[in-house]
């Protein structure tokens, strides 16, 4: 009989808690694993420095976060989506279909993408985007003709690079980092090596050629990492010739294990990224559901706190962790204060 009592009380507890849970009092965030560290720093400080409860920040990747963001309006959906790329037209449309129409875009700063190898391995000091494309693009120009990529060693196409086997660990397609990597490294390299031109001459339209440039060889020389940077680090740790793609902040936290490569003769640092000398960088964003402002306590305050000069500015804790501060932060702050949404013009 005690089982009956037990289950009855359990059901009662569940019922009571369900009714008590009607109002969510914390900000719910999800999205990019690149923005997650910054968001967690801000969330902790937001909980410590204000009377609002500490926001919950989930990871999962930019695309996954925006997908959840666009599921609808209401307490059972997230309030903020972190993204390491700008929202796409397609996603805005998907949002609108589910009733999420007023979206505020907040740019928090810039992040550098660095290429790094094992501290004790061979030195990769002189990368150009063309080298990366030659290493992992699926079709490359060899002796004037477009052929399937069969390069085995870096030295085969650039004498300055060490003669070791190619092993690249690049972010998987669900990461926002992949898009930047494709845009600023693969596409740039595809153009620089002349592969794109050769593709167009071969009868492809420009759009098709651009897509083909993003194809990565599938013979195991390039590995997609769907997990976090720690997974990439673990792969690099066991492979002295491996080169991984990391965020600047992650590299700076692991300088004892990783050796960074220059890109276009510029070493990555917050200064070279801010000045634009280092070519591979991208803005980081978060998106706020305007319909939730005033419903979820602390949502607007969270956005304002995040972008405050003392937090996201040049000497704040985010910059100290590795974020490159946005020179136009004041503009962002104004936009949040006025609740400017996408499409309404700023």
């Amino acid at each position, binding site marked *: 009989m005690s089982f009956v009592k037990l289950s009855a009380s359990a059901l009662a507890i569940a019922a009571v808690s369900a009714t008590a849970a009607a109002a969510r009092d914390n900000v719910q965030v999800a999205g990019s694993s690149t923005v997650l560290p910054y968001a967690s720093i801000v969330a902790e400080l937001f909980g410590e420095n204000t009377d609002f409860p500490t926001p919950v920040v989930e990871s999962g990747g930019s695309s996954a976060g925006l997908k959840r963001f666009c599921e609808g309006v209401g307490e059972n959906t997230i309030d903020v989506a972190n993204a390491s790329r700008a929202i796409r037209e397609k996603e805005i449309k998907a949002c609108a279909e589910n009733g999420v129409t007023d979206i505020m875009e907040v740019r928090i700063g810039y992040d550098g993408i660095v290429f790094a190898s094992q501290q004790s391995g061979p030195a990769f000091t002189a990368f150009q985007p063309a080298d990366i494309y030659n290493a992992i693009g699926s079709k490359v120009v060899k002796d004037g003709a477009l052929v399937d990529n069969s390069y085995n060693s870096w030295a085969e196409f650039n004498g300055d690079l060490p003669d070791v086997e190619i092993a690249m660990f690049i972010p998987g397609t669900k990461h926002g980092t992949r898009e930047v990597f494709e845009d600023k490294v693969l596409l740039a390299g595809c153009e620089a090596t002349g592969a794109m031109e050769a593709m167009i001459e071969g009868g492809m339209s420009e759009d098709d050629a651009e897509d083909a440039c993003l194809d990565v060889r599938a013979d195991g020389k390039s590995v997609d990492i769907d997990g976090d940077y720690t997974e990439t680090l673990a792969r690099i740790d066991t492979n002295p010739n491996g080169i991984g793609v990391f965020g600047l902040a992650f590299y700076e936290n*692991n300088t004892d294990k990783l050796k960074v490569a220059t890109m276009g003769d510029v070493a990555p640092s917050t200064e070279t990224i801010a000045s634009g000398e280092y070519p591979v960088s991208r803005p980081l964003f978060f998106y706020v559901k305007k319909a939730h402002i005033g419903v979820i306590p602390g949502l607007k305050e969270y956005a304002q706190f995040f972008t405050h000069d003392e937090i996201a500015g040049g000497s704040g804790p985010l910059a100290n962790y590795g974020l490159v501060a946005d020179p136009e932060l004041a503009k962002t702050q104004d936009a949040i204060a006025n609740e400017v949404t996408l499409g309404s013009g700023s």
Partner: protein
Amino acid sequence: MTDASMQSPETGRHTVSLTASDARTKKRAAAEKRFRAYGITAIATGLFFLIVLFASILSQGIPAFQRTVVSVDFTLTQQQQEQAEGTLFKTKAYSDLFISELNSELAERGISVDFDAAAIERLLGKVGGTIRTFYAENPDKLGEPIEFDLAASSRVDGYFKGRVSRDTLQDSRFLQLSDLDLVDALKEAGIIKQVFNWPFITGADSGVDNPGGAGIGASVVGSFFMMLVVLCLSLPIGVAASIYLEEFAPQNRFTDLIEVNISNLAAVPSIVFGILGLAVFIQFMHLPQSAPLVGGLVLTLMTLPTIIISTRASLKAVPPSIRDAALGVGASKMQAVFHHVLPLAAPGILTGTIIGLAQALGETAPLLLIGMVGFVARGYPDGFLAGFTEPNSAMPAQIYTWAARADVGFYEKAWGGIIILLMFLLTMNIIAIILRRRFERRW
């Protein structure tokens, strides 16, 4: 002839002495010996892996229970507090006050190494929150000197634990080689020291730049509430279902179908239950996100088949003679089950329940989709009921989150978390053994 033919095998047998074994006996004995050797090898292999596992968990996790602190007297005046409370970034204001006070105190003491406020800032972890919370809770302590144990930065902590050495350290804004001289001097002066890491056991998660402040306590509470939900739902439902299926249900195609499906359910990947939980509990029933209640419900679904299967097995193991005897003296079927069969099956049911709970305790995948994996640092719930609904993490989710962070300090915390998880599991198992002993009856 017949005699002779019967004689020959007998004589053959007689020629063999009883004390010396013949070829076939030897063969059998050798086979047995070999089998024993296989068994011992199997056990030894298992033990070897277990020892390797435990050794690596302990060696990597034990350092998490020590922390490096800067221990120094600090006085905060009411005016200073009011000023700090007036700013937006209050914890930074407290931290700046502490740094300037420490700076002047070190100058007074005449530390032989050159230093400046920036160097002290690099040595310290995030200390503002600790100071602010202390004075918010003890306003009467304003104006008197208080001895604070404040977390040192992750790299200084690593220096004490051997993670960071002078050879591998690269100058950065986090720590410079010259700072280590200051650390050594402060260590000699007794200002920087290692103490037991209570905040790790009692605290909540912290931001990625603050490994010194991270603790697993809040997620232990989250796991506890989840297990409570799982226990309160899956045990009664599971036992009721299996008693009905085993003792009362007619044997027909329909019950066979149910049986097969329960077994199938036990093999469903756990992430599927997470997807189901998101769709049914959060999006349809509007239960809160990141709540242990939802985590518990999802894990209940996952645990039910395990409990049903093991309960049915232990009900089957009760000899039919006991049922027959009870029915024979006039007991109703329900009395026979509840007074005689169920108590005898209880130890087996308990074992199944504990295995199911242990499995649920270590599960991360179903929690991914309902918002319990990530940065959930709300701290302890206010009250018992709030424990079910307030956002919280769970131990395996917390360990997973830490393992993915850039700062090596968190990696160590992840291993420490595994030790706490194992201790939680051990406690559960011990309770189960004690209960089983109490219920155990022989027939």
